[in-house]
């Protein structure tokens, strides 16, 4: 593990300036100006097709913006292993001859040429990572036979074992039961706040992450708004994103955004 450096919340580590993305002739993201700080956990929310996954892929360098730039702060480790990524969907072949622990171990040095020699230290590191996500009980199982939630937890472990500076999680809670959601959220929150890793977590439900979320990034109509939930979830702000009038309603403890193509339900406040 990295030494315990206290996060300096004001330190910008990642800057998106005027980012515009066009895919298949369609503008998916426009005028994205977002600065992320070291050690903060940002929840990313927005309707289907808003461009959440696309935004993560732009940061990863998988998609090149047609305008604007993605800048990493000076001194920020760039490239190999600097960004941990858990994609939205992952379904390995059912017959794949690979165990859960092998999948996690790829996070250590899967980018290096040749074989790895194994060894006790490596095994202990993998065991530790498996324990973070409560996956020790199925460590020896073939990955093709695991459930979606079990796989998702392994991917989180695989991303974390590489000790990234930035962690991009695309709907990591989607397949998880409530207990596993809480565990992953707790883990990711500690990673952000204790180790100073910047985390972006895409979700359709703010409720599980309210306790650890520092800021909210709301995507709609290809535009983004970033701030505290109270700053962002307001009729004027969201109306500007959607490009037309919307209402933000609080009904029975739920926040509903009405007037978007569909009604977005963000959270139920406890």
């Amino acid at each position: 593990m990295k030494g315990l450096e206290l996060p300096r919340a004001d330190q910008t580590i990642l800057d998106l300036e005027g980012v515009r993305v066009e895919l298949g002739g369609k503008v998916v993201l426009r005028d994205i100006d977002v600065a992320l700080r070291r050690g903060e956990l940002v929840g990313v929310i927005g309707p289907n097709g808003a461009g959440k996954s696309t935004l993560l892929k732009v940061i990863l360098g998988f998609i090149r913006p047609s305008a604007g730039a993605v800048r990493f702060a000076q001194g920020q480790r760039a490239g190999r292993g600097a960004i941990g990524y858990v994609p939205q969907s992952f379904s390995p072949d059912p017959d794949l001859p690979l165990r859960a622990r092998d999948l996690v171990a790829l996070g250590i040095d899967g980018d290096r040429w040749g074989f790895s020699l194994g060894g006790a230290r490596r095994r202990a590191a993998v065991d530790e990572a498996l324990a973070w996500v409560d996956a020790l009980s199925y460590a020896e199982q073939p990955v093709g036979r695991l459930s979606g939630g079990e796989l998702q937890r392994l991917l989180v472990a695989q991303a974390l074992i590489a000790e990234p500076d930035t962690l991009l999680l695309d709907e990591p809670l989607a397949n998880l039961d409530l207990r596993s959601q809480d565990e992953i959220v707790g883990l990711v929150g500690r990673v952000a706040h204790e180790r100073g890793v910047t985390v972006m977590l895409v979700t359709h439900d703010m409720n599980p992450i309210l306790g650890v979320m520092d800021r909210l990034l709301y995507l709609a109509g290809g535009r983004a708004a970033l701030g505290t939930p109270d700053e962002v979830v307001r009729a004027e702000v969201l109306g500007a994103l959607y490009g037309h009038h919307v209402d933000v309603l609080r009904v029975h403890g739920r926040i509903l955004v009405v007037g978007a193509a569909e009604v977005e339900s963000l959270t139920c406040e406890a």
Partner: protein
Amino acid sequence: MALLTLVRDLLQTPAVATALWIGSIVAVVSGCAGVFTVVRGQSFAGHALGDVGSTGAAAAYLTAVQPLYGFLGIGLLGGLAIDRLGNRARERDVATGIVLSLTMGLSALLLFLITEQTSATGGPLSILFGSIFTVAPAVTLPVELFSLLALGLLAVLYRPLVFASLSPETARARGVRVGLVGTLFMVALVIAVEESSLVAGALLSTALLIGPAAAAVNWTRQIGHTLALSAFLGVAAVVLGIVLSYESYFWPPLHRGWPVSFFIVMLVLVEYIASRLWRRRREATA
């Protein structure tokens, strides 16, 4: 024991000894490359490369060049074309189909020319169904060298190849050069397929590539074990196939010897069916 004595006797015959040695090397290379081919879902490309290579072999036959170089040359061109044209699995199948039909058209022409020119069917037959007993001692060294190259490539690629085959996106985020890894694997695959085309024939090289690998996948759950078992199953099928083919000279009614490719394919099939049955039993009891 009887089998061992038999093999020892066979080794006294130089042509058979060469066949056993080359066949075993090729089986190891195919067995290892095959595991990744199966895992990456590239079986169609693997099969097509055999047919693609046969075009080169036919051209080589016409120009009196060693068929191995024909197989390898055109196979490499075809493999790189498939790799360049198709990035995602579906695109890759389309690209494979295009490259395949293009070269098969050429192949039809070349095989026609061979039969017209030489009024012999031996050439086309050996290209399509293999020529392990007639492989000239001259190819032993090149086959050894190319096999070493393919196995070396697979060893070097091992970790990133497993990673990229499992999940290209997380591999890429981790710093794996997924495109480069795929292209280098294609080179190893071409060598494996074209060598087994030489041994078992262009039409049957798929059996050596996919059969032992698919059986090994059923029997194992760690890719290192899968590779070892696949190589072993391949060698077993080739050695036993050669022995049976040699023995079949004494079999009624023809007393002419049955083609070795037939035995190899049947043995691979037996291995695969056995692995399926084993797996089904394990899953039933689990």
